[in-house]
């Protein structure tokens, strides 16, 4: 770790609970580097998470941090942002946390375009509860609750976020770290609901169940499956299957929720 990044970590809480080879540390590191690059005020950042291996990240990060209930981080974050719009509010969430139990909150936080940055640690599995399938687990993959192969269909979280109203939408991976840092920086700078889905790895459960032997092999798989947004534009749906499309999908300047509410206060107080 670079010396100047140490102040962003709660060093006395390390080592972390994550397994060797887990991708969650890479994403946590990318968030920290993005914050450092932007020179954001540490005291004015509030990082909120749900429940899962990924949601333990805020505990290691030296900011105002809140570890909530499973799936509900965005709801808590909405209250925080409304109460104090000066805070930079960041939600760190797993794919189960965000897309299953928290799916509804994602839709509505995006719809409101409230100024919160959401980063999904998307390892396509429930890590913390030891390897059950999530809504992001590909069809045919194995999980402890899909011993015969998963028949649920997964979906594209970025498309969901965008169609619900998110005004910055991007995807990165734990393999392409410099790009990931840039995407998170863009998300943090964006005013409105920004969403970064990060293709992540869980060697302990997804890897073992699906016979990807090592974390390195999982990383290589991510590298090989990744294609840019530009390349993807030229491909058919069939050609796209099994690919991870990375880069920026959407960016729009739109009215932000807490700013709109500030106008309501003005009106209610007689336009002072």
């Amino acid at each position: 770790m670079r010396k100047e990044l140490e102040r962003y970590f709660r060093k006395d809480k390390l080592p972390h609970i994550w397994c060797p080879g887990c991708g969650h540390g890479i994403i946590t590191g990318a968030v920290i580097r993005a914050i450092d690059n932007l020179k954001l005020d540490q005291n004015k950042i509030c990082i909120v998470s749900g429940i899962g291996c990924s949601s333990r990240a805020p505990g290691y990060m030296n900011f105002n941090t809140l570890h909530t209930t499973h799936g509900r981080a965005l709801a808590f974050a909405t209250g925080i942002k409304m109460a104090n719009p000066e805070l930079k509010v960041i939600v760190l969430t797993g794919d189960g946390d965000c897309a299953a139990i928290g799916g509804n909150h994602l839709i509505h936080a995006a719809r409101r375009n409230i100024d919160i940055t959401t980063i999904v640690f998307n390892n396509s599995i429930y890590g913390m509860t030891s390897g059950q399938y999530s809504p992001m687990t590909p069809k045919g993959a194995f999980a402890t609750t899909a011993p015969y192969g998963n028949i649920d269909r997964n979906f594209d979280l970025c498309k969901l976020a965008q169609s619900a109203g998110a005004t910055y939408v991007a995807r990165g991976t734990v393999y392409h770290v410099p790009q990931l840092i840039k995407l998170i920086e863009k998300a943090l700078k964006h005013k409105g609901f920004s969403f970064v889905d990060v293709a992540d790895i869980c060697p302990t459960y997804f890897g073992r169940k699906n016979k990807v032997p090592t974390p390195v092999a999982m990383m290589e798989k991510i590298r090989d499956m990744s294609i840019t947004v530009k390349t993807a534009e030229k491909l058919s749906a069939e050609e796209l299957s099994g690919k991870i499309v990375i880069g920026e999908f959407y960016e729009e300047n739109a009215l932000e929720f807490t700013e709109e509410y500030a106008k309501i206060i003005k009106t209610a107080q007689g336009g002072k």
Partner: protein
Amino acid sequence: MGKRVMLMQGNEACVEGAIAAGMRFYAGYPITPSTEIAELSAEKLPKVGGKFIQMEDEIASMGAVIGASLAGLKAMTATSGPGFSLKQENIGFACLTEVPCVIVNVQRGGPSTGLPTLPAQGDVMQARWGTHGDHPIIVISPSSVREVFDMTIKAFNLSEKYRVPCILLMDEVVAHMREKVELPEELNIEIINRKKPKASLPDYKPYKDYDGDGIPPMAAFGDGTPFHVTGLIHDETGFPSTDPKVTENLLNRLMNKIYNNLDDIIEYETVDTADANTVIVTFGSTARSVLRAVKLLRQEGFKVGMLRLKTIWPFPHKAINELTQTATKNLIVAEMNYGQLIETVKASADGVFKVYGLNKYNGELITPQEVIDKVREVAVNA
């Protein structure tokens, strides 16, 4: 602002009381018979610089309320039966993380969607034990519109003082009833705010009992001292621990901060209990019928009285105990449910009194006549 006399609905008095108490954030999801509380909060909060949001469901509402409170605002949500069930997990989060917040539950007939527009008092036990695990909670229940105003303020004050969620357990009757009320002058309203850490505290520990009263001072996110909050069992620094001693100490402190202050928290009212042979224990809107019945029965010479619990949880054992010093032999517990509070009253009376239930759970009120009939029946049996 001077005294204000007006005709007001219970739900309206709740919002007036909340704003007077300092509520500056409301998150909710519409549900009968609590909806007016959301509507009026939406209208009134921005006028005082406060904030209202209609969330996507009750789970989210409860989460947003806790978030806003952690960011320094006094926050409230209101709901009814089904929504109250949905809030429970996050209410438990607020209990463990000691985040002040007020939850209004306007009780309606249940279970499930039940009787959405009709009154009940069926959430007595859910208010106490709705969320999982051992936890402290304060539950208070008003019987009149003016009392809704006062008790909403009290709910905020207790919640802020003890850093515990406070549930205002209303029922459909009190919520929708209109009464002429005189609201107190704002100057005369006692307002309690959460204890803040002294600015000088070097390396603030969010769950350290600095003052020895079991209530840690509470900073807000953004105050300048970053801190961590988790729903896992935590030590005084706020970080997770599975140490049995840390766990036990935390749970003991959470309980003791309430149970060491029962005299400050608990309120009840007695009517004609001094010489009463039979006392009717009740709360909420049912107390209105009981009061009427006691008056009529007294005219007939019955030695009957009323114990009205304003605080339901922690249970006012002291009030039951006081009756042992009187001539009271029989207790009748009148409640609009199949019999919930009666079990605790029985345990509290511990064989000293004969305890009878007067229960109604068909969406109709317990009438004064029904109370009178029950008292007569008990008198004959006794």
